[in-house]
């Protein structure tokens, strides 16, 4: 029996790789297609790096979801960083507050089925994404 949930601290570069590997194995267990696996892993790679770069580190929670006949994977990224003052702007293609091309959040959103951004200035940011099997 493999766990249906995994908590991953994000404190260094190699944790981003670890997130990718764990999300990949969950996506395979949820029987996502290869393209959907790749989209989800890419999205979570962006989000894990955001947590590290902008949030100053944090944690990821990856869960296997079952709803009727379909299965899915939920990944949540939480940090206690500065938060995002203007979420509409942060979700715009090409907008970046730091290094990168500003595709992290907006790009990640396009790659998943459900996307939730919860942020408060001075408190931190939590981004949750879900990808379902078809």
């Amino acid at each position: 029996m493999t766990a249906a949930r995994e908590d991953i601290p994000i404190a260094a570069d190699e944790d981003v790789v670890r997130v990718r590997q764990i999300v990949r194995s969950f996506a395979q267990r949820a029987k996502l297609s290869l393209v959907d696996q790749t989209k989800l892993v890419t999205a979570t790679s962006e989000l894990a790096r955001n947590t590290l770069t902008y949030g100053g580190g944090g944690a990821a929670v990856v869960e296997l979801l079952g709803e009727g006949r379909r299965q899915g994977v939920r990944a949540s990224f939480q940090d206690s960083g500065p938060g995002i003052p203007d979420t509409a702007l942060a979700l715009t293609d090409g907008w970046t507050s730091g290094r990168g091309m500003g595709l992290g959040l907006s790009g990640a959103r396009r790659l998943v089925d459900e996307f939730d951004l919860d942020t408060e200035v001075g408190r931190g940011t939590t981004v949750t994404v879900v990808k379902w099997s078809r």
Partner: protein
Amino acid sequence: MSAVERIPILKIGDVLLASIQVDLQDRDVLALQEDLAEKITATGAHGVVLDISAVDIVDSFIGRMFATIAATSRLFDAHTVVVGMRPAVAITLVELGLTLGEVRTALDLEKGLAILAELGERAPR
């Protein structure tokens, strides 16, 4: 902290070949960028081939590094071709909204080398 993974760079004629076989950490990609710049200046190579046939995801950071490697190579009169991109990776990159700048792409190593040879002929040295 784990050590930086050094990606081997092979020289074939005046082309440098880097075949990425590991799950890349950001600092591995940065190291590759530096190693390639040094190797181009040391060898006078006119082409760089990045083989990503074993790479199962390219996110915006890794993609941007490919573009940076290509731009840096141009300063040393070398062209860069990325070869072997997996279909799932290509589909994801398009949806992510990433363009690879001046990076040329080819289906496989053979076609990549052909592109470099052609680029070399067009600008005789």
